[in-house]
């Protein structure tokens, strides 16, 4: 037999191990879903974000609005601060960076709340809801990042939320006017209830994702067992069946919420 005939035969055998077309197209669809949206609109948004951010920060007003402690909700320059924050978020390319920006913005809301607390200023329910909205965005972003970063930022978000609620409580104690006190108490109670609901929903979603992953691993393990049982060749027995006495179970990642410092958002 000539060399090229052997080559052709080997290639023919190789071709039989081609991925099935259905798998190829399903995989391609999956990849397109996983890819970050790179539409012209997104490119335009990025360009506009860069321009807005640069022009606003460079302008003195923008810099003042972005950094000054005096700029709190109800301040005329507060919308400028919000615009810079939105531009910052649009500029973040990776999910990790986006999550960090969102957590940083949450930190700004907490600082604003502390300033309001020092001034004994009234806190509107809209303001508290705005904080909750950002808490939501931050948590959604956290679900897209790697486990290690997620745990770190999760704990930060948890601490930020607790500090925010504590600041509202202190403000409530300071307020003398009974009517305002009552309104603030109501806002605070509603806030606590909504955050609690959010935590429960989030934990449920994470638990479901965890169970799905566990089921997938179990299925893989079963298939591997099936292969091991089917192997008869001596060479393969050497490779795969040598440690017959050992049984293995696939270990899942331990939930980190069991630690005392664990975040409420982390319990699975």
């Amino acid at each position, binding site marked *: 037999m000539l060399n090229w005939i*052997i*080559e052709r035969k080997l290639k023919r055998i190789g071709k039989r191990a*081609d991925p*099935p077309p259905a798998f190829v197209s399903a995989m391609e669809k999956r*990849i397109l879903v*996983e890819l970050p949206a790179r539409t012209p609109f997104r490119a335009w948004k990025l360009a506009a974000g860069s321009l807005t951010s640069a022009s606003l920060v460079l302008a003195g007003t923008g810099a003042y609005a972005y950094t000054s402690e005096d700029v709190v909700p109800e301040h005329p320059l507060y919308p400028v601060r919000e615009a810079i924050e939105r531009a910052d978020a649009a500029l973040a390319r990776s999910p990790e960076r986006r999550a960090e920006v969102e957590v940083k913005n949450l930190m700004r809301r907490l600082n604003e709340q502390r300033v309001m607390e020092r001034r004994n200023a009234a806190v509107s329910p809209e303001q508290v809801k705005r904080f909750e909205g950002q808490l939501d965005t931050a948590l959604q972003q956290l679900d897209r990042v790697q486990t290690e970063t997620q745990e770190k930022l999760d704990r930060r978000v948890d601490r930020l939320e607790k500090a925010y609620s504590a600041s509202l409580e202190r403000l409530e104690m300071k307020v003398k006017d009974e009517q305002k006190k009552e309104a603030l108490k109501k806002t605070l109670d509603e806030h606590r209830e909504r955050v609690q609901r959010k935590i429960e929903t989030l934990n449920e979603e994470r638990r479901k994702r965890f169970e799905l992953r566990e089921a997938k691993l179990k299925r893989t393990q079963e298939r*591997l067992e099936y*292969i091991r049982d089917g192997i*008869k060749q001596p060479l393969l027995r050497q490779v*795969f069946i040598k440690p017959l006495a050992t049984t293995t179970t696939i270990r899942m990642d331990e939930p980190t919420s069991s630690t005392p410092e664990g975040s409420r958002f982390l319990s699975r």
Partner: protein
Amino acid sequence: MDKARFPQFYRKHLTPIYRFMYYRVGGNAELAQDLTQDVFLKALEAFERYDESVSTSSWIYTIARNHLITAMSKLRPQIDLEEIANTLGDGINWVERMATNDDERQLLRAMDELPPEDARLLREKHLEGWSYEEIGEREGKSPGALRVQAHRTLKRLRTILKNPKVC
């Protein structure tokens, strides 16, 4: 590299990676699909770190190899990890599953008699479909040297086929 270029990268490397998995999991197509999917999702996550000028296929090959080793070692912690990735599941399983004819079966058995390095080159080149350039990049050899090695190996294979061992 920009993630927008991942679909092209995926199309180029899907078949060799799938075949790599297929032969090493005993021709179990379902498991090969699962493992291949995991490999490409991992690659997509880390695609920004991929530099085409540094490696063409060894990057994805390394991800696939490590993923296979992790999957197999979960099942058998004492397994020789190098063996998993370097040994083809060239046993009865996939040969039977692929409905090979007698002629082809004889050829595959003859490959078992080759020195491991030579057999591996033929498998990577002809069964899995990697180019000499890609294999050379991983092995640290020039494509020319690999061509010569493959030619000599094919000659040796011919000799083995002419004088089959009598069992």
